[in-house]
């Protein structure tokens, strides 16, 4: 029998740092719970859940991935929006390519990266570019936002569109704001799942995320509360 205290939480890659801290806080408040984070693109996590992965809690970076989980009957509780995020342009420190805005994403001379169109950050980024009327000249579709962030941070890509929170969390990139009128707001839903084996601990975790303490941790990492 598996130990009853391993709580499997599948969380969007953009939640890496915030959920790391939330996980520690939940473990501290509940010594019999051990939080195991499974981080990746929400689309990958969704596929794992649809294939029956024994996950207790799913925190997605988009409502579409969560909607599919609800539709397949894999959620035990109604999803709740626990955080909001917006998109920002990420540039290597010093902005060597002298990017000035979204318009530069159409420049074929530059190395431009986005998240893959399947990952929520890729969906959001394409929506932003469409709002701005820019047809991007993409050089790489990275599997998730952390992979994109790392390549921009390493200076291998000249620019990418990531979450505002990712720019905050990375010491290697600098951010360039996207005008509000073309930016999108990403809603992050969370729910307890039926395939997990610790629904009680799962509910505890979700409760903590929605609590004042959980929200203040998320705010500290740049997420806004719903």
């Amino acid at each position, binding site marked *: 029998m598996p130990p009853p205290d391993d709580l499997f939480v599948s969380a969007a890659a953009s939640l890496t740092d915030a959920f790391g801290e939330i996980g520690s806080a939940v473990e501290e408040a509940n010594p019999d719970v051990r939080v195991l984070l499974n981080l990746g693109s929400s689309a990958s996590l969704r*596929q794992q859940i649809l294939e029956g992965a024994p996950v207790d809690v799913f925190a997605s970076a988009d409502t579409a991935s969560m909607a599919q989980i609800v539709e397949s009957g894999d959620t035990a509780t109604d999803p709740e929006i626990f955080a909001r995020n917006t998109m920002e342009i990420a540039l290597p420190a010093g902005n060597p390519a002298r990017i000035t805005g979204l318009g530069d994403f159409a420049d074929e001379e530059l190395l431009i990266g986005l998240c893959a169109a399947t990952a929520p950050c890729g969906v959001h980024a394409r929506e932003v570019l469409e709002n701005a009327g820019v047809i991007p000249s993409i*050089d790489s579709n990275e599997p998730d936002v952390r992979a994109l962030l790392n390549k921009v941070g390493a200076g*291998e890509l000249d620019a990418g569109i990531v979450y505002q929170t990712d720019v905050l969390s990375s010491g290697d990139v600098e951010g360039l704001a996207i005008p509000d009128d073309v930016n999108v707001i990403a809603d992050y839903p969370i729910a307890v799942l039926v395939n997990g084996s610790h629904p009680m601990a799962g509910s505890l975790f979700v409760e903590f995320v929605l609590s004042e303490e959980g929200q203040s941790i998320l705010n500290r990492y740049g997420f806004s509360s719903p």
Partner: protein
Amino acid sequence: MSVNAPERGRPDRRPPLVLIILGGVGLAVFVIPLAGLLARTPWSALPRLLSGDVVTDALWLSLSTSLAATVIAALIGVPLAWLMARVEFPGRYLVRGLVTLPLVLPPVVGGAALLFALGRRGLIGEPLSEATGLVLPFSTWGVVLANTFVAMPFLVITVEGALRNLDQRFEGAAATLGAGRWTVLRRVTLPMIAPSLVAGLVLTWARALGEFGATITFAGNLQGRTQTLPLAVFVALESDRDTAIALSLVMVAVSLGVLILLRERWWKAL
């Protein structure tokens, strides 16, 4: 004691039951995932799924980059194998270790290492791009390089082994009869190791065809430029599972066909 005990002098030719069971489980490890893939395959939709432009782009890119990597491996890997097999030099064991490293290294680590070395801000990549404007990451040549890094060891170790097992008296005889070193290599050595050379080349090609981790890390993922079959499978798994399965099936069929052919024709030589 046992009813099944073989009669004296007539050893039981049946393999022991324990081995059959354990070996069967061993086989199941390989077969069950394939069965899962086949069970999910939308057979009637295959022609449509396999003719989409994502698929044909990936197929073409995979074929061309894996062949390019194989050619490069032949050009530089065979000489390396010859040096390792025939020349006593200090640090030969270290070289052998380094050459074998990509076989056991997680490909993603190889991809990251390539990026640190040959990326735009890399050790060699930075002077290279400043001098020539050539940027390898996110380019098709980046895919070829990642493929070569991961797959060339198969060629080097196969050819090195063959050269070391070769009876050097044949080469000596040819030389005594007046053949120059180049002629000996071309007319005696290479023909004698041909089966291993072919096996090494085919294995290298098959490994390059399946390369994923180093490619996505070093060369990125862009349809038509760096999105090879394995990358297309990875992306399609999240958006269009039927296409992912169809692509996977192509890879399984090609790889299995190559390996069976190889086994029948060339591996006996090893």
